[in-house]
């Protein structure tokens, strides 16, 4: 039980630490370092406690349920392999913490660094101890994200930003692939629990999706472990501070990839596909990395490629997959972590103390920093595989595996040669690192005078080099048991104990090692000068840089190509969008009705009335005419539109819909006025634009004409088919039957609107209110185009002056119409429930009564006499309608339940009192308010621009005067205000 909690604590500790560190002030360097170090040390202590059960071959598990239904639970497990890896991560982590404390400068925001570092460590530990493959992916992606932050820590530099982004993009892509692989594996295994998955190797390998799984899985593993061709992000990540490189590229990030390969080799390994893919890529990476490393002039660049190369080696071992190979892989994971961490730190010290990492500038540093030099030499030797150092041992084991193991393929046969070849380069670059930096003449043009670093910066390196030596000399005593324990936890309990010895006699691996050492030394010493003068990379090959390919691909595939396709598959123009919608609707109708659109057997038919047909001849002519004139003769189009609307009204009346006819007529009037109000602000269009007569424009019009005709024919056909279909039982019949008895009104349409379906009306008046408000708000910011800002053409010139009184007589009639229109509005309102009419039509009528006053006079005249607060009308209208609806609650009925009753009033008799009437009153008030608000808001624009003109003229005159008086160069800017209060809003 305690152990379970300990695992949880182990994973949580770094995250908690990350939060803690993040909240520290920017300058709390020591505190942040102490927190980080102590937390990681605590982790080590936990691992110490866990050692006993793990050493006994057991697995410590912990489980926190997260999303059980997705089988996505925080399941953790520590076995020998994980244990060893966790210890490695924590130990090197502590050393990096110490090292970074002295490496980072005072000006860096250090707590943030530690915060990222701890978060990254937590994610890495999560990957190692995840007991659920999905959780593994979670942590896997978290390492990508946190490493992004770490690499980009010095984000002021372009290189850091690019490097971080590249690392993230590459590894997160891999993570997504891994996710799918894991999901499929879990699907096949029936569980996402790692234990079950590890036991289902046969099932997985036999599954038809195995190649796909393997491909996705390997993309995940290879991107992380920087295998060819995904290796390029790793050198790019060298822009990170050196402690980050020392951590990420020795024990953690990249090792997560090989960890996964080793971990899953029992599940996915053992097939030819696996061998070719994994060993093939591993060997390619090994060789390529080693070759490139030799030619890099940047210290960290050399180490980066060396890392790639060594990871290739481990990958190749995982691909071979024998017990020895797995053991060797694990061994090399540890060894590489130790010597590479120390080398990165050493490189960091050199950079820190000299100000450069360019090996062509560095020289003879041994005299200035002998201790660091010694440490670096030992570590390099381990990297080169010199005997008595840890690197030698695992390399020997690698050689032994490639020599001993056979499956008879060409790759298998060529492995020893390839391994030796790579080793030669490995020796050569190690040698170059030592020789160019520490030996030779003392460099005198370094940015800083070199000297030994502060001792605490060196301590981690010393410790690591000590480990190199200890493991190299006493492998069986130091790492042997742990290795076996780790390998057994991967491969199963039946693995025999491998004893690791320094001396196996004179055998092939030894010969290969010796040959590599000698050839490597010769290679470097022969070409040292050439390499130093050469380009950054191996001859010829340096021109093909994977990073450039990546960048090109990123540019092409994530920018240029998407933009191109996006541009081709989308548009920002309105017409194509509307055209598409029409086409899709027409197409959808055609597809669904193809062959299914049939006339009913017994068609309904109403006898033809020639008058009606004639009227529609008028309507059609008007509609087509409006369409034809709308571009150049807007006024004519407007008139014709009115004609079409009128015939539509007539149709409603003809086919028994008087309410519709009335409403449409009223709306028609208001719409015409609205459109006319708008016409004033549109640009003049007199001469035909020449382009219109060109062929493309004609073709466009032809195309649209065809579309319009087809769509129109389609809708006409549907209408015809339904119209002639026999009537079906519908809800309309119920309304007809019950309107009077249940709804208390004889006008069924009105009863539907204010009672049966009053909720529709309730929403509808809200729409009207919103639109009123929008129109009002929008017009507050209205500025006419320069062309329309002046007085209309008609009002300019002498003739217009003579027109001042043109309305004198007409306006009398318009004024006097105010009263009858109010009466008519009341009439339409009061009788709506029983006869055609109702709140809406009554409201519009009243609004027209007001409009007429505006038409007959002008805005100032009307508003000096009539005070209308349209927005208040709207507010009260909405409230009346809403409260009427809520009133039903008092009687225990749902919203909008209407009550109709006849109240007996003396003298007058029985008077109907229906709540529906109150609701209609709300509609009425709102409609009046909204309609007036819209009309008046537009009408006010003329007034506003008149004021604007006055103000501007005044300002201009002033400016003119000023210019003349003082010849001052900068006249004050005219206060461009147009504060015309619109009649709405507020009083």
């Amino acid at each position, binding site marked *: 039980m305690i152990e379970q909690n300990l695992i949880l604590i182990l994973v949580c500790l770094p995250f908690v630490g990350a939060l803690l560190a993040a909240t520290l002030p920017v300058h709390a360097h020591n505190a942040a370092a102490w927190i980080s170090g102590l937390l990681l040390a605590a982790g080590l202590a936990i691992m110490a406690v866990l050692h006993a059960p793990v050493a006994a071959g057991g697995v410590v598990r912990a489980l926190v349920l997260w999303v059980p239904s997705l089988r996505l639970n925080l399941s953790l497990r520590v076995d020998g392999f994980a244990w060893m890896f966790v210890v490695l991560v924590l130990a090197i982590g502590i050393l990096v913490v110490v090292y970074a404390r002295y490496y980072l400068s005072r000006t860096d925001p250090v707590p943030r660094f530690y915060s990222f570092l701890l978060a990254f460590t937590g994610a890495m530990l999560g990957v190692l101890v995840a007991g659920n493959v999905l959780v593994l992916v979670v942590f896997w992606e978290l390492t990508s994200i946190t490493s992004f932050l770490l690499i980009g820590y010095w984000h002021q530099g372009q290189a850091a930003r690019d490097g971080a982004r590249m690392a993230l993009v590459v590894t997160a892509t891999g993570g997504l692939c891994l996710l799918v692989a894991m999901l499929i594996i879990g699907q096949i295994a029936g569980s996402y629990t790692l234990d079950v998955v590890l036991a289902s190797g046969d099932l997985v390998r036999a599954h038809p999706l195995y190649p796909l799984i393997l491909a996705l899985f390997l993309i995940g593993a290879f991107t992380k472990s920087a295998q060819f061709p995904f290796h390029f992000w790793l050198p790019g990540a060298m822009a990170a501070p050196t402690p980050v490189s020392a951590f990420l590229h020795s024990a953690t990030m990249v090792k997560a990839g090989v960890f996964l390969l080793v971990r899953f080799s029992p599940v996915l390994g053992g097939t030819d596909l696996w061998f070719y893919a994994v060993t093939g890529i591993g060997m390619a990476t090994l060789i390529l990395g080693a070759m490139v490393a030799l030619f890099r002039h940047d210290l960290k660049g050399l180490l980066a490629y060396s890392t790639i190369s060594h990871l290739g080696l481990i990958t190749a071992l995982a691909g071979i997959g024998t017990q020895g190979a797995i053991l060797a892989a694990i061994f090399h994971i540890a060894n590489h972590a130790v010597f590479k961490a120390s080398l990165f730190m050493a490189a960091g010290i050199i950079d820190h103390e000299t100000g450069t990492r360019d090996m062509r500038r560095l020289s003879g540093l041994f005299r200035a920093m002998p201790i660091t030099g010694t440490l670096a030499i030992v570590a390099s030797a381990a990297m080169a595989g010199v005997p008595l150092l840890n690197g030698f041992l695992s390399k020997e084991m690698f050689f032994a595996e490639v020599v001993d193991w056979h499956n008879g393929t060409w790759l298998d046969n060529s492995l020893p040669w390839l391994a030796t070849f790579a080793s030669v380069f490995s020796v050569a670059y190690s040698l170059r690192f030592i020789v160019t930096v520490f030996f030779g003449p003392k460099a005198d043009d370094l940015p800083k005078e070199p000297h030994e670093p502060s001792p605490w910066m060196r301590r981690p390196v010393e410790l690591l080099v000590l480990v190199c030596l200890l493991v190299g000399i006493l492998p069986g005593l130091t790492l042997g048991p742990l290795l076996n324990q780790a390998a057994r936890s991967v491969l199963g309990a039946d693995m025999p104990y491998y004893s690791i010895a320094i001396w196996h006699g004179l055998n092939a691996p030894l010969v290969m090692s010796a040959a590599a050492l000698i050839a490597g030394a010769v290679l470097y010493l022969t070409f040292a000068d050439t390499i130093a003068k050469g380009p950054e990379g191996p001859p010829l090959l340096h021109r093909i840089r994977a990073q450039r390919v990546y960048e090109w691909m990123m540019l092409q595939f994530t920018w240029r190509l998407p933009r191109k396709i996006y541009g081709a598959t989308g548009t920002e123009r309105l017409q194509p969008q509307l055209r598409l919608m029409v086409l899709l609707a027409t197409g959808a109708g055609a597809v669904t009705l193809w062959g299914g659109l049939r006339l009913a057997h017994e068609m309904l038919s109403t006898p033809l009335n020639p008058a009606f047909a004639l009227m529609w001849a008028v309507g059609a002519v008007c509609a087509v005419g409006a369409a034809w004139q709308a571009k150049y003769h807007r006024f004519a189009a407007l008139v014709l539109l009115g004609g079409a609307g009128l015939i539509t009204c007539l149709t409603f009346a003809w086919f028994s819909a008087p309410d519709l006819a009335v409403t449409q007529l009223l709306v028609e009037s208001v719409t015409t006025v609205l459109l006319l109000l708008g016409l004033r602000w549109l640009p003049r269009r007199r001469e035909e634009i020449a382009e219109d007569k060109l062929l493309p424009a004609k073709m466009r019009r032809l195309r649209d004409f065809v579309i319009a005709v087809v769509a129109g024919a389609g809708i006409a056909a549907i209408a015809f088919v339904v119209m002639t279909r026999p009537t079906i039982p519908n809800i309309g019949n119920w309304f007809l039957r019950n309107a009077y008895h249940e709804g208390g009104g004889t006008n069924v349409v009105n009863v539907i609107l204010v009672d049966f379906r009053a909720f529709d009306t309730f929403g509808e008046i809200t729409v009207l209110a919103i639109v009123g408000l929008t129109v009002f708000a929008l017009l507050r910011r209205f500025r006419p185009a320069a062309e329309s800002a002046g007085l209309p053409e008609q009002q300019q010139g002498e003739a217009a002056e003579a027109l001042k009184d043109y309305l004198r007589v007409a306006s009398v009639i318009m004024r006097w119409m105010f009263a009858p229109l109010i009466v008519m509005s009341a*009439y339409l309102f009061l009788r709506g429930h029983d006869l055609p009419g109702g709140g809406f039509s009554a409201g519009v009528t009243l609004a027209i009564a007001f409009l007429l006053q505006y038409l007959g006079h002008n805005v100032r005249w009307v508003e000096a006499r009539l005070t209308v607060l349209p927005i208040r009308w709207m507010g009260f209208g909405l409230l009346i309608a809403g409260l009427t609806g809520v009133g039903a609650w008092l009687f225990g009925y749902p919203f909008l339940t209407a009550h109709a009753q006849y109240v007996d009033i003396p003298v007058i008799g029985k008077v109907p009192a229906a709540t529906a009437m109150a609701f209609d009153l709300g509609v009425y008030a709102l409609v009046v308010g909204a309609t007036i608000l819209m009309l008046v808001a537009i009408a006010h624009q003329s007034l506003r621009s008149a004021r604007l003109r006055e103000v501007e003229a005044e300002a201009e005159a002033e400016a003119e005067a000023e210019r003349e008086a003082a010849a001052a160069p900068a006249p004050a800017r005219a206060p461009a205000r147009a504060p015309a209060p619109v009649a709405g809003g507020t009083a």
Partner: protein
Amino acid sequence: MSRLVPHPLLSLALVLMWLLLTRFSLGHLLLGVVIALIAGWALGKVEPERPRLRRIWPLIRLMGIVSVDIIRSNIAVAGLILTRGRHGARKSAFVDIPLRLDDPVPLALLAMIITATPGTAWLEHDPDTGVLILHVFDVIDEDEWRHLIRDRYESLLLEAFG
């Protein structure tokens, strides 16, 4: 009183209108009165001054005269259209008539009469000179038209509105 009921005659007419639109009953009468008062009050806002109607009788006479004139000119104009303007002999003209009326309300009444009578169209009235430009569909003698408008209609209106 006159502030609350600025236009009593109009309000009366509105009550009548209400009763025409609905049907006569006590309830409707009361309702009509209320509505007419409200409407009249609202009109008072835009037209605060009551028109100076002195006598009503000339107006009634005018109505009778106009009704007859309308029928006559309907027939005349219809005939002109059917005969294509007496086969091309018809001549229309602008006739300017100096009017004595100045108040807009009687002028509006005159406009209604002239418009309702086919064959004459009100085009323009200049308040400064008092000249009305009329378009006459079928002119034989312009002075006859001046006489008609001034003596047949305008004089009655002048009588009524003083």
